[in-house]
């Protein structure tokens, strides 16, 4: 029978099926971090259960880490305690940890692909909803809760019901200035925040085939923002080329054997999906959000829609925007380029390319937070740091930072932040903060202008 990419990977990982119930799904790689793992370690300890496959777990510290003075002891007691617990738990259970300051430390969804931990055909989980990122390699990757983190610790498996399949196809040529972030923001704005709930999504079409691995990661990262547990893109030469030679990638003959297997994974031409959508690349333009969920997005050139739904109105009231108005020329005081969505080297290259020879506007505080130590090093080695510093941007140390504002990187009450992150929920970037999601290019332009501009006009 014809199978989708998702079917092939899923079916090859089913240990067994409970009659009229879920399946036992084997998990190849388990990524953990300091925030959603401590309670799982405690649970195992309380029940006297050992960690089953510690060598299939990779740990990093990212959510709750400072982005300044990482070489100093962490001031916040609770944060310090959480990181200490992670170190202790990893040590006790023989789990590899790339702690703060390690050359491989970084946001879990940036460092794992970078190290070659992420590979096609694998099943991967993490106590973080943006685990969908790793689907860019043709892996089944999804976020789990802490009880499930404990289950994977205990058995390297999860009990799951197979989700339905969804395919989003985008063909055509993207316009100048339209980045992968715009593509996914556009898709979510069209489909809404719960269209993918209960589904695993495959992205297909030449737009994704032509994208770099980093672009594909940006797209898959936000699958969860339309409700889909995960997103996937068929592995191809771009994927193999990216994985090749990385720290934990198979080497030599073993690599060639893997590639031969990975080539069997793409969806069969006559495979059926439970739901399909398709879009024209030409219809996509640089995007921006105006509300408090990622589905509330428009092209920068468009007006905020008019809607009488009370939740919609509540959202606009929170943002202090009016239905029917344009966001162009709205003054913006904060810009954040970072997060597991957009903190890879290509994102900083795009930003630097735009910023070069310009200065940030005086009213703007602009934070650039690399996704990992390796990205930070690349920024310095490629000479991007000096471009940023000369333009008045602040390059910080790696971590999740202002994407969720668990550390000190918070946007003040009532302020707008044009952010390359993934969620514009109320207070996401600090109590009372107002988030506007955009691509790294739009974020860089906003920082330079001190207000929202129509970037496509400037480019053409």
């Amino acid at each position: 029978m014809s199978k989708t990419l998702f079917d092939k990977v899923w079916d090859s990982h089913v240990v067994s099926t409970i009659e009229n119930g879920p399946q036992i799904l084997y998990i190849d790689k388990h990524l953990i971090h300091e925030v959603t793992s401590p309670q799982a370690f405690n649970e195992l300890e309380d029940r006297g259960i050992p960690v089953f496959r510690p060598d299939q777990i990779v740990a990093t510290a990212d959510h709750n880490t400072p982005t300044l003075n990482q070489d100093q002891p962490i001031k916040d007691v609770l944060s310090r305690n959480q990181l200490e617990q992670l170190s202790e738990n990893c040590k006790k259970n023989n789990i590899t940890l790339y702690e703060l300051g390690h050359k491989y430390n970084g946001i879990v969804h940036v460092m794992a692909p970078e190290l070659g931990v992420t590979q096609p055909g694998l099943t991967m989980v993490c106590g973080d909803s943006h685990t969908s990122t790793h689907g860019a390699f043709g892996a089944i990757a999804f976020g789990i809760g802490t009880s499930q983190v404990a289950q994977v610790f205990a058995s390297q498996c999860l009990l799951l019901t197979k989700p339905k399949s969804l395919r989003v196809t985008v063909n055509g040529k993207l316009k100048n200035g339209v980045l992968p972030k715009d593509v996914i923001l556009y898709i979510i704005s069209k489909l809404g925040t719960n269209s993918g709930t209960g589904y695993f999504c495959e992205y297909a079409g030449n737009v994704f085939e032509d994208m770099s691995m980093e672009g594909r990661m940006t797209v898959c990262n936000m699958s969860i923002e339309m409700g889909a547990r995960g997103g996937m893109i068929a592995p191809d030469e771009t994927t193999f080329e990216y994985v090749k030679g990385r720290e934990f990638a198979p080497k030599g003959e073993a690599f060639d054997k893997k590639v031969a297997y990975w080539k069997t994974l793409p969806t069969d031409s006559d495979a059926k999906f439970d739901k399909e959508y398709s879009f024209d690349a030409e219809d996509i333009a640089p995007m921006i959000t105006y509300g408090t969920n990622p589905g509330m997005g428009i092209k920068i050139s468009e007006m905020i829609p008019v809607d009488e739904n009370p939740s919609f109105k509540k959202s606009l009231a929170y943002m202090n925007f009016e239905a029917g108005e344009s966001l162009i020329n709205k003054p913006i005081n904060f810009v954040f380029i970072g997060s597991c969505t957009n903190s890879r080297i290509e994102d900083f290259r795009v930003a630097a390319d735009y910023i070069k020879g310009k200065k940030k506007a005086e009213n703007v505080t602009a934070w650039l937070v690399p996704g990992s130590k390796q990205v930070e090093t690349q920024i310095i080695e490629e000479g991007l740091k000096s471009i940023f510093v000369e333009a008045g941007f602040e390059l910080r140390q790696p971590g999740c930072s202002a994407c969720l504002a668990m550390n000190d990187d918070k946007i003040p009450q009532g302020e707008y932040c044009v952010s390359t992150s993934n969620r514009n929920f109320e207070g996401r970037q600090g109590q009372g903060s107002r988030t506007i999601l955009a691509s790294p290019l739009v974020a860089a332009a906003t920082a330079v202008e001190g207000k929202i501009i129509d970037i496509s006009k400037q480019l053409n």
Partner: protein
Amino acid sequence: MEKFTTLQSRAIPLNIENVDTDQIIPARFLKATDREGFGNNVFRDWRYDKDGTINTDFTLNDSRYSGRILVAGDNFGCGSSREHAAWAITDFGFKVVVSSFFADIFKGNALNNGLLPVQVSPAFLSDLMQKIVSNPETELVVDLENQTISVKDSELSENFEIDAYKKTCMINGYDDIDYLINNKEQIEAFEAQKIY
């Protein structure tokens, strides 16, 4: 995990759609390393103003409403995978959340913590909201065995779906770890013959 069979209780209406996990429990409260105490901060930024003043307009602070059932708008629990959201809701005292749609990860987290997500039709949800708002003393009955939710002393009732395995777990207070550990041999056999 605490067992769940039936519950009769008043309910608290939260007539907002797309309630995300950052509203249920803001990220700044995720620094704890145990599961207890999150109820103090559930819906923190809707319950309190930034200076700590109680927001009396918010449903959880409205003295007319009480009970162990939260009745919420469509797409409840979207956003992050933080199980802290389920812990916060249960720690506050809820045993059931009713909505016309739940986000996947939240639903799973709720079931793993003895918090029953009851998905009803949009029409039933709207009727339920109206009933509770017009009479906050309205009692609801949630019967897991028969998979029904009804308004006491009225005709209003609906069946709800739940995975048969999860239903058994909830009724008996089992969790997935018990099941998985008992299948270790099968898992090891799978590891030995993996095809990929």
